[in-house]
């Protein structure tokens, strides 16, 4: 269990762990707390539902949260744990900006409830690098300019991590010619099909494909 845990004040303590926002804790709290309430939507005439207790292992740290059951995993990460690397784009599973890995598998964190993942292990973009050593996919995205505005990038990178693992496990795709072959070669067409759940409005797709190929050790 992380020493920062508290059911009552998840934001306060978690925020201090993150050097990137060390100096803006108070301001951040002022903006995130109301949003945390809004994210769950109006409560309506009824009494609020009983909260759900959720234990999540995020990037190797145990977190204990008490949440409105409506809290999506994305909102839990962003609004309750101040892990704002995962982005809210469409909030309907259509853009992929919220992609995280659960037990190593990529999913849309906006379309699942935090309570459904009690006891599970989650990797977000914040958990990929080793200190200052970037994950090979992060480094490749920088090297190949795999973004312009950068909003989709954390989702693209988490998705690519999951995609390369799926590919190594022999997962086929819609464009795989022969489904009976154990593992398809990661051609550009395969990468594009397998990454189609991540939209980039800046259309950095050619560079994203190049970055993924480099990280996967495929000649570009």
């Amino acid at each position, binding site marked *: 269990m992380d020493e920062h845990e508290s059911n009552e004040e998840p934001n306060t303590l978690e925020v201090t762990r993150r050097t990137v926002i060390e100096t803006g804790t108070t301001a951040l709290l002022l903006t995130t707390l109301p949003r945390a309430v809004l994210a769950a939507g109006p409560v309506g005439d009824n009494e609020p*539902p009983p909260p759900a207790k959720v234990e999540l292992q995020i990037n190797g740290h145990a977190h204990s949260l008490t949440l409105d059951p409506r809290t999506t995993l994305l909102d839990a990460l962003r609004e309750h744990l101040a892990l704002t690397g995962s982005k809210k784009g469409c909030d309907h599973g259509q853009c992929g900006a919220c992609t995280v890995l659960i037990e190593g598998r990529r999913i849309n964190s906006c379309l699942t409830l935090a309570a*459904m993942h009690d006891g599970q292990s989650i990797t977000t973009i914040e958990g990929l690098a080793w200190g200052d050593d970037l994950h090979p996919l992060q480094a490749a995205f920088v090297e190949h300019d795999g973004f312009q505005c950068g909003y989709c990038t954390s989702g693209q990178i988490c998705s690519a991590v999951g995609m390369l693992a799926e590919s190594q496990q022999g997962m086929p795709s819609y464009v795989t010619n022969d489904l009976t072959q154990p593992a398809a070669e990661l051609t550009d067409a395969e990468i594009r099909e397998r990454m189609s759940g991540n939209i980039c409005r800046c259309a950095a797709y050619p560079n994203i494909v190049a970055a993924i190929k480099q990280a996967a050790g495929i000649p570009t």
Partner: protein
Amino acid sequence: MKAFTYQRADSTTQAAAGSVRPGAKIIAGGTNLLDLMKLQVETPSQLIDINRLPLDKIEETPDGGLRIGTLVRNSDLAADPRVRQRYGVLSRALLAGASAQLRNKATTGGNLLQRTRCYYFYDVTKPCNKRSPGSGCAALAGFNRIHAILGTSDHCIATHPSDMAVAMRALDANVETINRQGETMVIPIAEFHRLPGKTPEIETSLKPGEIVTAVTLPPPPPGVQVYRKVRDRASYAFALVSVAAIVDSTRGRIRSARLAFGGLAHKPWRVAQAEQQLANAPANTATFNTAANAVLEGARGFGGNDFKIPLTRRTLHSVLAEMTQA
């Protein structure tokens, strides 16, 4: 999202019993349900999470088929070596649907039970007999490019959006269920989804308190299996028209054929007469035309979706020509 209580089911019968309570909903992958809850198209007051139940296995059946647990994720089903070897049409249909992230979450049972993507069903400010029975159908005279051309009614022209179910229809799958008394039942997939008629809000033949536990596939029929999906973009889009085809042919002659269509109706569409026209027939344009006529008998466009009639014909031609090398 409206407030709800969250509960994890300890057993299948407990989940079935709980699902009878007013406002209760089962949640599995949640990729469709939570989307609809955010828009308040679905407003359950209680969610029963079945994700921890032991319903996630793919097993061989004694007759040489497969039994797929309702919680098997779409990606795992598509990647299963037995499915890839023997039921290629199913693997291909699954891989044609949604995105990798969604397939990692979406389940077999949930895929069958997903709701239509009709824009007016999704828009709570518009009339929709499926969402709000008796309110009317905004799609009839609205923007209906993605809507049904077969089996429609004056009350609803929505389509069923699944690719997986179309392949399962061609494979004559059976849906296994359990009710709150713990009794198990088997529903042939042909009878699982319903046409809209006057009650488009009732989409399946499941009774209250009856939940899906598995889908079984009989041994694969002879022949080549193909899933062809025609859509507005090359990936991550719902079908305008899709065909699951299993065709056994040799030297320009078709022995037998099975054809199921997606994107055309409120359920995966299959026409026995079309398959009879193809059986023991020469693989040529005239035969394909006769089959297409049988598939499209009674087809009706609503303006925006008129194109689906010739598109279905051409897609079927293309698939049959490719499969029989005609």
